[in-house]
């Protein structure tokens, strides 16, 4: 049986929230209003309408088609695992709009958007909400370890302090832009004169400016392949600290690359499960060169400059041809970005692929514990 329209929209909003989109009460209301406003024959246009409401940035924008089709057209979604005994709900946008219009005809129209918010979470018949498919994440993924709870609060606090310390000491670049600063040394004559008009021509309110300095842009590529099983958790924790301290963008990869920054921004104990869901279906092995190519050509296109730092957290075992990684890293370097390679082992990775990258990686840094990160803080600039 088709779930109630408001419940279906609430379920969809819950799915979006689960995947890092910031869909709050206001957005959910707007989605209901959009569905109410659209005539029945234009029901297909709910997709772009809701996309405009729910997406906040280009990352959300790119993720939308897959999330939309996963919820509304589950039969078309690829790469999903159907569990035995689980039936997929039948969801049809046209029916939803029809039901919504019927529903509204029976109730007070003005109350309808609010009613959506009181609708229970998606507990429709035939749609087991707690077990909603998450891209086919199986129970045997390499990142199943949920030992995040084993981190003591003081460890987490230390990690955050370290990340902030490193963020502070990364050299800020001087820009050609100026910003207002009471202690600035350059007088903004035009604005000072303008401000003096209200005091009869006396420059009582001088406007001082100082050059703007910006922190470098940081990208972190975290290897979550099977060979990194025991280290990925630590690396993701560290990456999360840098998302908070430096607004870093974080990607995970093994055979493919996916951005997980929105997931890391939220305080959630189930972040590991969500990353499992993102990376599910990537297959075995590690394809670092392919992932770096994807990162350079798609996700960081136009963002790699000489003020960019790219940190790769990986053991360096690459299933691609050994020369490919050097080619890709050379392209990153050609844009001026500085590459640092963090490895869990005592010695820098000795794989063939990385041997060819000797002049491209600025520094190899061991990273296997918080102590290593503290030591790395002394060399990272």
């Amino acid at each position, binding site marked *: 049986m088709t779930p109630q329209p408001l419940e279906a929209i609430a379920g969809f909003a819950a799915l979006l929230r689960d995947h890092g989109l910031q869909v709050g009460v206001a957005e959910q209301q*707007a989605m209901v209003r959009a569905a109410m406003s659209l005539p029945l024959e234009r029901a297909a246009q709910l997709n772009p309408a809701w996309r405009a409401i729910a997406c906040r940035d*280009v990352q*959300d924008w790119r993720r939308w088609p897959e999330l939309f089709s996963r919820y509304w057209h589950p039969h078309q979604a690829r790469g999903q695992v159907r569990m035995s005994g689980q039936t997929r709900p039948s969801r049809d946008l046209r029916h939803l709009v029809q039901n919504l219009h019927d529903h509204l005809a029976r109730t007070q129209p003005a109350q309808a958007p609010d009613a959506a918010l009181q609708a229970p979470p998606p507990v429709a018949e035939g749609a087991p909400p707690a077990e909603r498919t998450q891209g086919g994440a199986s129970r045997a993924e390499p990142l199943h370890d949920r030992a995040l709870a084993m981190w003591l609060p003081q460890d987490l606090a230390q990690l955050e302090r370290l990340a902030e310390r490193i963020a502070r000491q990364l050299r800020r670049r001087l820009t050609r832009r100026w910003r207002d600063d009471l202690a600035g040394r350059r007088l903004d004559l035009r604005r000072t004169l303008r401000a003096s008009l209200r005091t009869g021509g006396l420059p009582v309110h001088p406007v001082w400016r100082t050059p703007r300095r910006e922190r470098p842009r940081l990208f972190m590529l975290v290897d979550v392949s099977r060979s990194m099983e025991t280290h990925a958790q630590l690396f993701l924790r560290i990456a999360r600290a840098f998302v908070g301290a430096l607004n870093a963008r974080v990607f995970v990869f093994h055979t493919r690359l996916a951005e997980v920054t929105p997931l890391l921004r939220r305080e959630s104990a189930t972040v590991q499960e969500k990353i499992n869901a993102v990376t599910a279906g990537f297959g075995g092995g590690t394809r670092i060169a392919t992932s770096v190519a994807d990162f350079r050509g798609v996700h960081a296109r136009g963002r790699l400059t000489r003020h960019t730092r790219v940190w790769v957290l990986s053991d360096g075992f690459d299933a691609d041809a050994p020369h490919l990684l050097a080619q890709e890293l050379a392209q990153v370097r050609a844009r001026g970005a500085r590459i640092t390679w963090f490895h869990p082992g005592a010695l820098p990775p000795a794989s063939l692929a990385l041997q060819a990258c000797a002049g491209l990686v600025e520094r190899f840094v061991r990273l296997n514990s918080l102590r290593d990160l503290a030591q790395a803080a002394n060399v990272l600039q």
Partner: protein
Amino acid sequence: MTDAELREALQRAGYLADEALATTLWLCGELQRPLLVEGDAGVGKTALAAALARALKQRLVRLQCHEGLDLSQAAYEWNYGRQLLAIRLHETQPEPGSPRMAETDLFAREYLLERPLLTAIASEQPCVLLIDEVDRADEAFEALLLEVLADYQITVPELGTLTARHVPRVVLTSNGTRELSDALRRRCLYHHLDYPSPAREVAIVRATLPAAEQVLVEQAVAFVQGLRREDLAKTPGIAETLDWVRALHRLDFKALPEDPQGLMGTLACLLKTREDRLQCDAPRVRQVMEGRRAGAAEAGSARP
């Protein structure tokens, strides 16, 4: 106006919007929410607002954002010079029998200089407000915008709160040079404009330059699409394509020449950095051109 009618109106105004964009614009009107448009430079973000104004037959009010933009340049400013003049006039030539000048007389609407935000709010007729390149303004300016975008009102401490007579259609554009605050994003609907497909780009060029040869347009668009796949520092946008086709048309090209040397002089329309010029030498241009026939065939056969 339905989304389909809006799409047609945009087309008549010279902007070929796809169905999703037309729906989003229509939804902005329905929900009375601003639209934040992001995308690479040259994909038509600013042109969208201008076309929307033409399509709706409304006035376009434009606020160009820049570093250091503040309230006095964006919303309103008191006309201090005129206030001082009024005081002097009152002192030197008091009208017989007129009461003493009160402070409130000096802080009346007639002494208020309207800047784009207030112009849009106070407009007697509905209008389209374009806040262009909002990422260039400081973070503090975003906070100023919040009141305007959420409630369509501006508070002038001396006068009170001025509320919009007609809720303006607001379009904000951003090139993504700086992360915008979450508060600003939350108040807007969002649309990401990407580079158009070959068929759509051909249609856009044809609509803008109807005099250019069809073959030339298809080949030029296929070339630019090929160039976008190259690893360039500054990817050419639609504006660059239009400039280039316009240049080729002025030079009496009926189709792209076989020899890339003939094109090198015109590439200034497409390649805007020294590195890109060095990278795109004649052999590289030939490589891109060799893919053009297949590309042009695709661009010509597909429907926009």
